[in-house]
């Protein structure tokens, strides 16, 4: 990210960059995303060995206790390599909820397992495709010693890969209310839970859940009953900052890939990089990609803020701009390549696809613009 890094940060950055450069060439990535799981278990074990899976988890639970900036360093390199894995789902969403809200038992049972690569998680909160957390309608009725959950969830990342799912449902209030939400811990194999998982355009996996009077014991409640919303917001904001870093990595990859194309491809007997109109357009891409690097750092700093309004305003500002500029950059990357940019076997189109779905994930640029507007006016 071209900022002054501590030695520890440099080590993380270098190790992820080395993984991407040496072990994650584009053709391997394309083969992996075409497998039924969509990622490599072998890679996942490496992630654990390299310490990335425990990076933001508390040191008491086998993690490294690092913050959004360090997570951003991982995500930026993942972006450059279009790395497809349940990292965000498991570490930054599922485990983050457990770390923030789970009981000591829940934490000690799950977090070391996550850090060691033995357990995968995901978070199912959204029902609406716009992923507005307040709009949650799925209900959890008290029933004797436990709950009966009814509802649907959409846009659940790597649902089929997860051993357990953190599911948000209403124990009170009405759709639109912030209060009345609770987290539940559900086994993917839980009786009464229907999971469908789809290969997504961006190389990731995305699932839907359906459950009708699914019975869960009281011990499956994670965190305070009715009080999930502020925790969910904090977890989502840190995940959003991570997406900004990933997008920044992709944006810079678009720039570099296009620049090297400009320096090799000829048309009309000249390198295409010698045409001034194209030079200025690539310069625009470069400037935007540079800006996104700073925005990613800003997002990470904001995500670490203790004041929820400061955090939310900063993250929404970053996510909104990242979504908008990321998509512009992705489209230019394809256009400036011409025909080759349209092909499956070349990176450009896949950069665009991932940048598009990064924008649409966890609230798109318009949703975050509106959230920022509310917080800043």
């Amino acid at each position, binding site marked *: 990210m071209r900022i002054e890094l501590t030695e520890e940060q440099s080590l993380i950055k270098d190790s992820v960059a080395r993984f991407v450069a040496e072990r994650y060439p584009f053709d391997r990535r394309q083969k992996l995303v075409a497998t039924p799981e969509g990622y490599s278990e072998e890679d996942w074990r490496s992630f654990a060995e390299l310490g990335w899976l425990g990076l933001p988890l508390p040191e008491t639970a086998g993690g490294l206790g690092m913050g959004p900036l360090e997570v951003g360093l991982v995500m930026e390199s993942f972006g450059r390599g279009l790395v497809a894995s349940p990292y965000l789902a498991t570490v930054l969403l599922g485990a983050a909820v457990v770390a923030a809200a789970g009981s000591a038992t829940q934490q000690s049972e799950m977090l070391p397992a996550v850090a060691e690569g033995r357990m995968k998680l995901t978070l199912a909160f*959204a*029902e*609406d*495709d*716009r*992923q507005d957390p307040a*709009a949650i*309608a799925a209900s959890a009725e008290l029933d004797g010693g436990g709950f009966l959950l009814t509802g*649907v969830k*959409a*846009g659940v990342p790597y649902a089929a890969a997860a051993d357990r799912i953190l599911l948000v449902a209403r124990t009170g209030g009405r*759709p*639109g209310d912030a209060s009345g939400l609770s987290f539940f811990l559900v086994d993917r194999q839980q009786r009464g839970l229907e999971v*469908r998982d*789809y*290969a*997504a*355009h*961006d190389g*990731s996996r*995305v699932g*839907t859940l*359906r459950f009708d009077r699914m019975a869960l014991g009281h011990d499956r409640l994670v965190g305070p009953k009715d009080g999930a919303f502020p925790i969910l917001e904090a977890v989502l904001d840190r995940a959003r900052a991570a997406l900004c870093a990933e997008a920044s990595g992709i944006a810079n990859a678009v720039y570099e890939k296009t620049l090297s194309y400009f320096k090799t491809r*000829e*048309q*009309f*007997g000249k390198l295409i990089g010698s045409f001034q*109109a*194209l030079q200025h357009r690539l310069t625009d891409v470069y400037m935007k990609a540079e800006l996104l690097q700073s925005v990613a750092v800003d997002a990470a700093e904001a995500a670490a803020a203790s004041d929820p309004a400061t955090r939310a305003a900063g993250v929404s500002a970053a996510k909104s701009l990242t979504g908008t500029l990321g*998509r512009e950059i992705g*489209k230019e990357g*394809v*256009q400036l390549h*011409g*025909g080759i*940019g*349209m*092909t*499956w*076997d*070349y990176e*450009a*189109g*896949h950069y*665009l*696809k991932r940048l*598009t*779905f990064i924008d*649409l*994930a966890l609230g*798109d640029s*318009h949703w975050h*613009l*509106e959230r920022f507007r509310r917080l800043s006016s």
Partner: protein
Amino acid sequence: MIEIDGYGSGWLEARPDLKSFRDEVRGFIRSHLPEEIRRLVAAECMELPREYILRWHRILYQRGGWGCPNWPQEHGGPGWSFEQQFIFERELALADAPRLVSFGVTMLGPTLIEYASAEQKARFLPPILKGEMLWCQGFSEPNSGSDLASLKTRAEREGDHYIINGTKIWTTEAQIADWMFGLFRTDSSGKKQQGITFLLFDMKTPGITIRPIRTFDGGHEVNQVFFDNVKVPVAQRLGEEHKGWGYAKYLLSLERFGIAEVSRSLQTLGRLKSILHRRRADGSSLMSDHAFGSRLAAAEIKLRALEALERRLLFGPGGPESMGAEASILKVMGTELQQGLLELQVDAVALGAAPDLPAESQDAPNLPPEARYAARAFFNMRKTSIYGGSNEIQKNILTKAVLGLE
């Protein structure tokens, strides 16, 4: 509710003859278009099966040569005016009918009528007219993208034949076409535009290999075609040897009506509005989202303006044949607008657009129907600002031909 019907304010109102023509073709198309074909087109399916393409063409053919709306009656077409052709194409789009079979019908046919020998016309025009012969176009090569005239694939004369060696790329529908027309290098000594010859041949000729090119949206429309000593009889040459560039320029100039993509964009706008009006679980609709409504309105306003520009350029003084480089305006603005609408559609579906499913998939019960095509259409249609002369090339053309700058 104000509906843009695709003909701008007042134009059709002032021309009762065209209005009744519109009613006639609209009625026929809507009553005869098979529902299974319509559904695929409406889902922005990019790869229509060959049998659907030909079935629909034959239905139009039987109505009086409507499958070839730009052909004169003498050759079996309906002999329509430009205005009628324009309306017919718009009605096809508004009804979610397949586009016209572009390579054989709209491009090669008129070129044959203009330049082919009587024998060639008798051989090729009837099967195109009747929907018995699909064509593909062999122009681009791996190192001749924007700079088409630099093509290198050779056709060497050997007695009564040309022997073709080399490769063509971005060949749309090569995998379903019966024949190809293409440009081949027969002389390298002069200017690059000279020494190009226009040949026609059966795709089953020995020595032709087709390699599919998958586009990043996941589809397969284009191919690379390899030629290894492919023998083409001299009788299948269009016009004179070395003069193919001139015929190709004529052929490419025929793409007038479709170029602004207004018809398709009108379709997309309609679909987009229906997505927006659909109620969500909480009873609201995206139409009530102020920011989204404004973006939609802005796109609709631009489409209305583009439609007015298209009409002015096509039907202003001189008619469509007087339109020269201005066609490039329609190409640039039309594809940008089309891409903008498709992007808006993705935004409307939001994360629901993520699953990569075939259009006809039944495997996604929880997903709305547009989840099947919104993202794929958006990604696929990035091609329209690249293919057929990228938008950057179109600006070069305008710069030179209209602005007069070197």
